[in-house]
């Protein structure tokens, strides 16, 4: 009786999980693995029309990419987004979380929802909004800056300002998500510890460094890993706001992959870009985890 029940339980387990597993295999794992194989072929518009035109070309796609200046431009732009954007967004999120977590704060839920709201908005729609907010002559951002005497900045038209402009938008769009994660961690910091440090005369910054930050270090790591992954995946932002310009200053890896694959139909080369992107994300994540282990955060 019990053995029969066990068999029926196992059968039910497979029956319930196999549709999802089949879909994941077919539409997620297989394509991801196929990407590697595709990157060793010259799959292009001719192969798209007739598979007889498909040839195995070894590392030729990778060799071509290394010689392509636009590829390196996309790589450096993306690395800039990672290196500049991650600390900026993590700091912004932590600041917001500490503000909302403050014991002096009234009507906490209201502020929490308001700060989180940008995260659930449609990226394309708010990118369109920010394109106008950042308008050189009529944009609200430059208007606010003019009130404190800063001359108008050509946010989306100058190669030096375009990256910060997109980062401001991405920061605005995503900090609410990280803030919620930080908030959960901050609530586990014992109030008594902070209180004791305060009575001992420790100032705000001392308490931040010696009480709060050590307690939330694992969360800070999690948030930074998530943010780095997000920075590697910027696509709609440059697509809508700058179309990769001006002078290719906002072409990201994913934007480059999209153009290689679906504008020029160089699918072999596009797959090579995708695979390199994956390696980058994996490498950075592993380095962060290693650093965290050495630092004793986890």
């Amino acid at each position, binding site marked *: 009786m019990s053995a029969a029940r066990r068999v029926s339980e196992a059968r039910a387990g497979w029956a*319930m999980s196999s*549709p999802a597993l089949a879909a994941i295999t077919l539409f997620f*794992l297989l394509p991801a693995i196929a990407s590697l194989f595709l990157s060793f072929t010259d799959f292009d518009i001719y192969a798209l029309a007739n598979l007889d035109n498909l040839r195995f070309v070894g590392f030729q796609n990778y060799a071509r990419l290394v010689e392509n200046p636009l590829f390196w431009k996309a790589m450096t732009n993306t690395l800039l987004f990672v290196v500049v954007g991650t600390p900026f967004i993590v700091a912004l999120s932590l600041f917001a979380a500490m503000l909302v977590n403050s014991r002096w704060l009234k009507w906490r839920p209201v*502020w929490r*929802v308001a700060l989180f709201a940008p995260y659930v908005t*449609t990226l394309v729609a708010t990118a369109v909004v920010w394109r106008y907010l950042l308008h050189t002559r009529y944009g609200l951002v430059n208007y606010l800056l003019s009130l404190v005497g800063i001359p108008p900045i050509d946010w989306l038209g100058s190669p030096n300002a375009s990256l910060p402009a997109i980062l401001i938008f991405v920061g605005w769009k995503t900090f609410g998500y990280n803030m919620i994660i930080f908030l959960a961690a901050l609530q586990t910091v014992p109030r008594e510890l902070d209180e004791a440090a305060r009575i001992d005369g420790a100032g705000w910054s001392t308490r931040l460094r010696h009480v709060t930050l050590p307690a939330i270090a694992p969360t800070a790591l*999690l948030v930074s890993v998530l943010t780095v992954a997000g920075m590697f*995946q910027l696509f709609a932002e440059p697509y809508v706001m700058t179309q990769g310009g001006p002078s290719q200053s906002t072409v990201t890896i994913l934007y480059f992959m999209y153009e290689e694959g*679906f504008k020029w139909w160089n699918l072999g080369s596009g797959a090579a870009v995708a695979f390199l992107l994956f390696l980058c994300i994996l490498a950075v994540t592993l380095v962060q985890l290693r650093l965290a282990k050495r630092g004793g955060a986890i």
Partner: protein
Amino acid sequence: MSARRWTVTLLAALVALLTVAPLLWMLSVSFMAPGEAAQFPPPLLPADPSLDNYRTLFGSFGIGRFLANSILVSTLATILALLFTIPAGYAFAKLRFTGRDATFRLLVAALVVPGQIGMLPLFLELKAMGLVNSYAGALVPWLAGIFGIFLVRQYCLSIPDEMLEAARIDGASEGHILRRIVLPILTPIIVTLALFVFLGSWNDFMWPLIILADQQLYTLPVALAAMSREHVQDNELMMAGAVVTTLPVLILFLALQRFYLSGLLTGSVKG
């Protein structure tokens, strides 16, 4: 004491105002007359609020079609994702079968791989299946939601085994247990998951941009991006388009935020 209370609250109010300002501005400009926003200093409120931009959008631009497409795709994505992930998440948490734990570890490891990595082969695969340029093609990624399985499993772990055993002893079939006993308990996480998938598929841009070639099939974000490239100068019209695109999900979130935020924490504090 009270002074500090007000300083902190005032600061929070200021930060919150700055954060929602772009959304309020979007709403305000959408009611302005053509060209009205292009002034210095930029006007904050419409001089003579009107719905003309919305009339143009739904009239000559046919945004109603894209709105309907978005509603259809997101609704179907949500239903399909729930049908695929809930039984799987429950099975991984509560049913003993060979290979379960190894498979689950593999799924968790696969969470590191961003979906964009396989986009080009997936496109070719769907082309071979004849699903390029169809709603079905746009729905496919939502069937393969590892995150959803993870979320449901996490929640199912708290269901006591004795409850399921008792039902088995009473002769209930496994399918019956899932439908009659487990599903009612899962209601909060189902709402959360449905909300995640609906918002995620509504806001999704890159995949529908790739897979939907025919303008008649465009979802709102794809249509809005195309429109904004053609009508860069029509500030007020574009703001109305942005409102139509983002207001539905914003309202949905505000109405169900409790479910959204709690699910977000279950999902992020993983492992």
